């Protein structure tokens, strides 16, 4: 084995293997970096931007002896390769503010009425918002008006909560090999569609046991006849904040 390579995450030395991204190395070392669209079993996607970090900020001394911080570049840690000696800032006020804003944008973009959402308490978007201390929406609501698709016997789609992470798209194409889902449209009309002639989920060959039916981090792809099964107080993020667990997806087995 050659010399182990390391970089610094908030001043802490993190080992990595050649080819690993910053988030992969951090999560392997047990260090949490917020993420929604990154999933250890899939290629990085880079859409949610929650994993943004700052790389190689420098402090310089000006002629009159003042210390000035020159911020390094902001980058998505899920798509940026780790490099030896790199200095990465994650849990710093400026990056936390940015993440708060991103979560607020996602929350107003959809109809996130958590009080009636079956995913409440184990939703990654909600868990992240709690952890970042998001108290207000800041932006005006978008009030999306997409139809709920209840055509499938076992699975229900509430497309008003979709964060366009494409995990279901990737899972269906790469794992289930069924290509049930796709993303269509541009700009703020971009939305999730089902690849059937009618456009309805019921006319696809999605099965409740498919990876694609169990990977959604928020309350879009839901299992019919399963909801509100875990008592308030015992749900995932009632018990521990999202940052307690470096990898968000792997340990959670969704009910089928």
């Amino acid at each position, binding site marked *: 084995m050659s010399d182990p390579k390391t970089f610094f995450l908030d001043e802490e030395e993190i080992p990595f293997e050649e080819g690993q991204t910053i988030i992969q190395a951090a999560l392997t070392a047990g260090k949490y970096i917020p993420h929604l669209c990154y999933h250890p079993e899939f290629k990085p996607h880079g859409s949610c931007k929650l994993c943004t970090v700052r790389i190689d900020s420098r402090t310089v001394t000006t002629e009159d002896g003042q210390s000035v911080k020159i911020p390094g570049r902001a980058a998505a840690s899920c798509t940026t390769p780790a490099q030896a000696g790199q200095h990465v800032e994650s849990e710093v006020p400026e990056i936390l503010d940015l993440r708060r804003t991103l979560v607020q944008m996602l*929350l*107003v973009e959809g*109809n*996130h*009425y*958590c*009080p*009636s*959402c079956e995913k*409440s*308490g184990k939703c990654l978007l*909600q868990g992240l*918002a*709690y*952890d970042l*201390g998001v*108290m*207000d*929406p800041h932006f*005006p*609501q978008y*009030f999306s*008006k997409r139809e709920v698709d209840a055509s499938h016997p076992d699975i229900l789609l509430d497309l*008003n909560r979709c964060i366009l992470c494409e995990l279901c798209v990737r899972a269906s194409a790469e794992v289930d090999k069924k290509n049930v889902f796709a993303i269509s449209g541009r700009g703020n009309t971009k939305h999730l569609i089902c690849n059937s002639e009618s456009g309805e989920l019921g006319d696809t060959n999605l099965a409740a046991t498919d990876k694609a039916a169990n990977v959604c981090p928020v309350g879009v792809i839901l299992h019919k006849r399963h909801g509100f099964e875990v008592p*308030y107080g015992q749900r995932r993020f*009632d018990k*521990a*904040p999202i940052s307690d667990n470096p990898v968000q997806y792997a340990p959670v087995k969704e009910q089928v």
Partner: protein
Amino acid sequence: MNAPLPKRKLKVATTSLAGCFGCHMSFLDIDERILDLVELVEFDRSPITDIKHCSPDCDLGIIEGGVCNAENVHVLHEFRKNCKILIAMGACAINGGLPAQRNSLDIRDILAAVYAQPGRGVHIPNDPEIPLLLNEVHPLHEVVKIDYFLPGCPPSGDAIWKFLTDLLAGRTPTLGHGLIHYD
């Protein structure tokens, strides 16, 4: 409690707009701590007092519910005008809440379905005494400036207590793990 005692009691007004009174019930869930609270504050216009309008010198306005009709808009403006600090309490005040689920439907269709169906009545109530509904439900901050937001549906009594004691002590209110909830 280590909140510095104010020179005079702070005046607190509260109201429910398109709310369910659940946030007020949760407020009462602070239980006997309300006795500590009334050492520090006096209640102005509120569903728990008989005062009809806000005094012009209210310190705190606490509002549950979003904005769903014309009267809500008037009351919200009265609060903004008379209260130094305005707090949006609960999911409805913050993002419209579950009542905002009506925003995907046409308001005329909703009213017709409820009031003008065979067996349910003959027409949509049209007396000018009745405030007109807005086309959509809105969170408070889309109508007036809101200073603080207290999430939850409803926020727990403990969350409300933490929030108010932070505020009364001059701290920016924060709810840590277990107290911050959107549901």
